[in-house]
């Protein structure tokens, strides 16, 4: 049976003391966003573009709070320039990315950014962890949070489309 990986991620966020969750919605993050919204100790911040999340994370850290960002792989393309600030200031950064443009993608417009998500992040100094199976997601998230907050690391966990399990346009519409 597939583990309840969004609930496991939420548990890791709680354990790490994350209080601010910035996100641009993605179908793959639907349940995690709901869990964070229901958590009274977390402040969820919907963003108009992923780029805003980098400012949010940096500002929250200046004020002593830990935060994470949730986004879809296409959103990684929107944060490239501002990752420069993360690198120069060594702001802790933990991004949980739900992948598009991989196996089972029905929308060809998602493919170019999906194929280059890891490369773009690594090029801008963000370490990438690939969560290819539902069983491995929580472990990767835990490691990323630890590295981010304890060692001022910039970390991203890419959650494979296989884990998310959206296969068709019809299924996405019915969500």
């Amino acid at each position, binding site marked *: 049976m597939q583990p309840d990986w969004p609930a496991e991620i939420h548990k890791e966020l709680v354990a790490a003391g994350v209080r601010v969750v910035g996100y641009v919605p993605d179908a793959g993050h639907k349940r995690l966003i709901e869990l964070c919204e229901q958590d009274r100790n977390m402040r969820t911040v919907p963003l108009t573009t992923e780029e805003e999340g*980098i400012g949010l994370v940096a500002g929250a850290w200046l004020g*002593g709070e830990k935060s994470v960002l949730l986004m879809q792989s296409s959103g990684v393309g929107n944060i490239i320039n501002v990752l420069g600030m993360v690198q120069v200031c060594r702001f802790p950064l933990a991004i949980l990315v739900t992948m598009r443009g991989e196996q089972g993608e029905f929308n060809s417009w998602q493919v170019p950014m999906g194929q280059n998500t890891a490369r773009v992040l690594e090029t801008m100094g963000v370490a990438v962890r690939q969560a290819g199976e539902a069983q491995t997601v929580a472990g990767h998230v835990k490691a990323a949070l630890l590295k981010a907050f304890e060692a001022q690391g910039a970390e991203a966990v890419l959650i494979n489309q296989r884990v998310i399990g959206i296969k068709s346009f019809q299924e996405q519409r019915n969500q």
Partner: protein
Amino acid sequence: MSATLRRRDVVRELLRERKDLLVVAGLGSTAWDITAAGDADMSFPMWGAMGQAAMMGLGLALAQPKRRVLVITGDGEMLMGLGALATIGVQQPGNLTVVVIDNERYGETGMQRTHTAYGVDLAAVALGCKFKQAMTVTSDIAKVRDLAYRTPGPNFAAVKVLDEKLPLVLPPQDGVILKDRFRKAVLADVLAEKR
């Protein structure tokens, strides 16, 4: 609109007797302005990440709800991240004020006109984004001080200033130093309050 205010006077007046006010300044002229008014540990002057000053202010305001947070940025910088105003409007941080020092120019790149020179009204955008107070100011800086230090927010002011080219007054550039000195100043005080 022909502005008469001078940007360094405005910023100096805003930061006079600032006490524990937390300040984020957008890249370029406003970072030099806050430094000309006196570099401080509880100031975070940005050297890049254009468009993110207001969002840095939001993150800080959420993390430090008992402090007042003031973002001082330029019209060009604000225009690059207008979505931040909508995001702030959703969060409604009562302790956050965003002040745009609006010379209607990109001051660092050759004084090209910004959108505000053509009549784009940033205060109207902020008002539409559910800011509690949003105004364009041409003379009354006391009103802007009130927003920053007392009025429940989120607040916004676009202060129209002359498009003067001034000597650079540079803050420290090392990002790690800027970050660490800010956190040390802010979080040490929080610990002291708990004792």
